[in-house]
């Protein structure tokens, strides 16, 4: 898909050429959008904020998977486990080291990055389906270690976490306060991911994804690049886990299942591989569908269909879920991100068809 620039916008320097946002209108729209997101702090209720906090966490997690799978082309079906590593790092660091939540957040990212890097090293020798199985093994190994290292993790009982301490008088014990932190983390990580994708390393990821032999010929260290992709992607997952665990103030092994890893991949397909917008839209759609279709629509349908059908309607949502992924795979395998590009192009070219 060709990128259609706004009419009359030209680049006069490399600086302009490299810019993500080229026009004042784009800057204005972005700032307005961010301001709109922050405005939820003032007017949204607990339910909406709760939903948004979870969405922010999963956007960060999905960005991580986008780096591993979308950019570097390394399939990972153990991504939820890396999220779990982040969550448990927060819990263990607080329980055993007495660290304040704010110190545990970067630690969660780093520990997840190390674990991800270790498992990612298998990508040096493995590709495609074989790599998928290796990351599947990562999921089971991580879950096994957490379940059985009881002295550290309290096994399957879970760990209580203290909500983040206030900063500048902001109480993160409330939904609104916590949303500010979750959104800020999400914005920062999105910024980081966007710039990473345009850096030398990001282009190396893409080169490895498109043709690793050709990339190697061009001087890219394949093993290093794949490992770093896994490490950075897992770092994102760790941060996502830290954000989520601070909100729940509790972490349990049952919360990052293989199902979650599969849904991560499924909704990355729906969002679109190789695009930051794809990762964001995939995560947002996943969690919105989760809440609005799986939970709310089930309840509404049971109201219409009567008592007898309440459990059928609940199951119906799962079918709808799967259908959405199938429809995207068949009709728009490049995901929402690509569709968005087409919509933008149509808008810019209108009223001309070509």
């Amino acid at each position, binding site marked *: 898909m060709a990128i259609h620039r706004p009419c009359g916008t030209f680049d006069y320097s490399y600086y302009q050429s490299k810019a993500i946002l080229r026009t004042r209108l784009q800057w204005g729209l972005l700032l307005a959008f961010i301001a709109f997101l922050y405005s939820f702090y003032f007017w949204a209720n607990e339910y*909406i904020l709760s939903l948004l906090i979870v969405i922010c966490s999963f956007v960060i997690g999905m960005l991580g998977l986008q780096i591993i799978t979308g950019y570097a082309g390394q399939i990972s079906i153990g991504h939820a486990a890396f999220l779990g590593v982040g969550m448990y790092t927060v819990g263990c660091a607080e329980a055993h080291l007495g660290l304040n939540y704010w110190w545990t957040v970067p630690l969660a990212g780093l520990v997840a990055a190390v674990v991800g890097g270790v498992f990612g090293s298998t990508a040096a020798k493995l590709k495609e389906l074989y790599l998928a199985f290796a990351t599947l093994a990562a999921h089971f190994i991580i879950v096994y270690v957490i379940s059985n290292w*009881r002295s550290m993790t*309290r096994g399957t009982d*879970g760990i209580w976490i203290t909500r983040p301490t206030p900063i500048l008088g902001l109480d993160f014990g409330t939904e609104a306060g916590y949303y500010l932190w979750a959104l800020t983390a999400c914005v920062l990580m999105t910024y980081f991911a966007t710039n990473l994708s345009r850096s030398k390393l990001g282009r190396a990821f893409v080169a490895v994804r498109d043709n690793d032999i050709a990339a190697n010929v061009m001087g890219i260290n394949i093993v290093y690049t794949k490992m770093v992709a896994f490490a950075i992607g897992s770092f994102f997952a760790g941060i996502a886990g830290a954000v989520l665990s601070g909100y729940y103030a*509790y972490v349990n092994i049952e919360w990052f299942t293989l199902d979650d890893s599969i849904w991560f991949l499924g909704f990355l397909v729906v969002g679109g591989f190789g695009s930051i917008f794809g990762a964001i839209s995939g995560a947002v759609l996943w969690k919105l569908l989760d*809440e609005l279709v799986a939970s709310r629509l089930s309840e509404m349908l049971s109201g219409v269909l009567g008592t007898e059908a309440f459990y059928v309607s609940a199951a119906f949502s799962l079918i709808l879920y799967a259908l959405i992924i199938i429809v995207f795979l068949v009709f728009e395998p490049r995901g929402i991100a690509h*569709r968005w590009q087409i919509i933008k192009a149509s808008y810019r070219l209108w009223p001309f068809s070509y």
Partner: protein
Amino acid sequence: MKGNKLLSTITIIGIVALVFLVAACAAPAAPPAKKPPVKKPRIIIHNIIDLTGAYAPIAIPSEKGGKDYLAWIADQGGLDVDGDGKGDVEVEYHWAEFGNVDARFMAAYKRFRMEKPKPTIIEMWSSPNQEMLKPVLEKDKIVCYGIGFSDPQVFPPAWNYMDCATYGEQAVGAIEYYMDHMWGNPPFPPKHPGPLRVAHLTWDTAYGRGPIGPTKMWAEMTGKIEVVAERFCTFLPTDPEIMGFLKEFDEMGVDLIWSNTIVQTPAVIMKALHKMGLKKKMVLGANLWAPPDQLLDIVGPEAAETYFTPQPVYVPAAQPDEPGVKFARMLVEKYRPGEAATLPNIQYMRGIRMKANILESVRRALLHIMERDGVDLATACERITGKDVKEHGIQTLAGYDAHGTTCALQMAPRGKDDRCLTSHQQQVAIIGGKVQVVSPWYKVARLIPPEMLEKGYFKDEEEAGLINRHIIVPE
């Protein structure tokens, strides 16, 4: 291009629809502008249930019982608060399905929490999510009516109440009863000298591991049993997976396998025991969420033979003349006659019991408010809080038999810090291809960690001599 246009249009429509849905959900749950005049005061009860996740097989029949009971209450004109046989209060039921997904559980709780009036009592499914909410519920002063907890959740006591005994107490009670009264009597395996050798074959979750610590500590304290193995299987195990464990157990000389799972796992274990010809050597016992009637339907009479579980309700297949079973049958005939061949079953009975316990707690709290404040019922319905339901409702349920679905005089809680609503259970086994009750109602062991006593909890029970065993639940 045509296809692209069509897809673009669909995408835009989809996004707009989603935005509308978000906006609809963002709106506070306010009553409609033109609401017809309400004749009766109203109370609301809530449920966050898993109908599509891991707990679905047990949640669905339970919910059928609960919903039918609520329909019956509505047909009576509402909840009878003053006991004059006429309905006084309209009961509104708000439920959310969370599919065993933590984020959806939290969102459902927040949505309920925002309602005006604030919820007083919420039925909840799944151990980890209830544990997550423990401090939140305490802060919000909302009672959780939980379907079951892992042991750490019960100590120290909070606002989470449990429909049954702890998984440790259930297991110790059932194993002890088996050892004293069933072991050695045909069709159960012959007795041998020395302690009963127990192996845990369960899920590797907080729920699955629930009874392991308590049974091990109890074994060490009493020497009556020996816990020789703990093994973990997948949520939906296969025959080869289970057969591997059973072969190992056979070599260890295991007498009893205990499984804290739901019915599918014991079904596979029983089939494997039958196939391998190990029924004469070892039996399988499981917690109350793996009811024998459901297992019998799944595996058939031969494979199901000797399987047993403890239950806190009367068993329709074995105790058809009990008033609670007759009541349940009446509900089935009235509200789902098409399912009369399979219902009521144990889960259906538990569904009735849960909703009855919740409504009885609310009813008692309303009576207390009317007496305390000297107000009428409508005002009491407006004033009721979670604290009222906790202190003057659910905490006073001892002796309530929930329409005869459970035995009277044996209901918990036993003291001000007790959070378990079952103190007695009966042993239910499959013998001769039928579901049979093989014990009277017996009291479960009371397993309180000593540090809880040191912290000053459970003093009333200790002074009344109700605590018969103290154990340490290891972390």
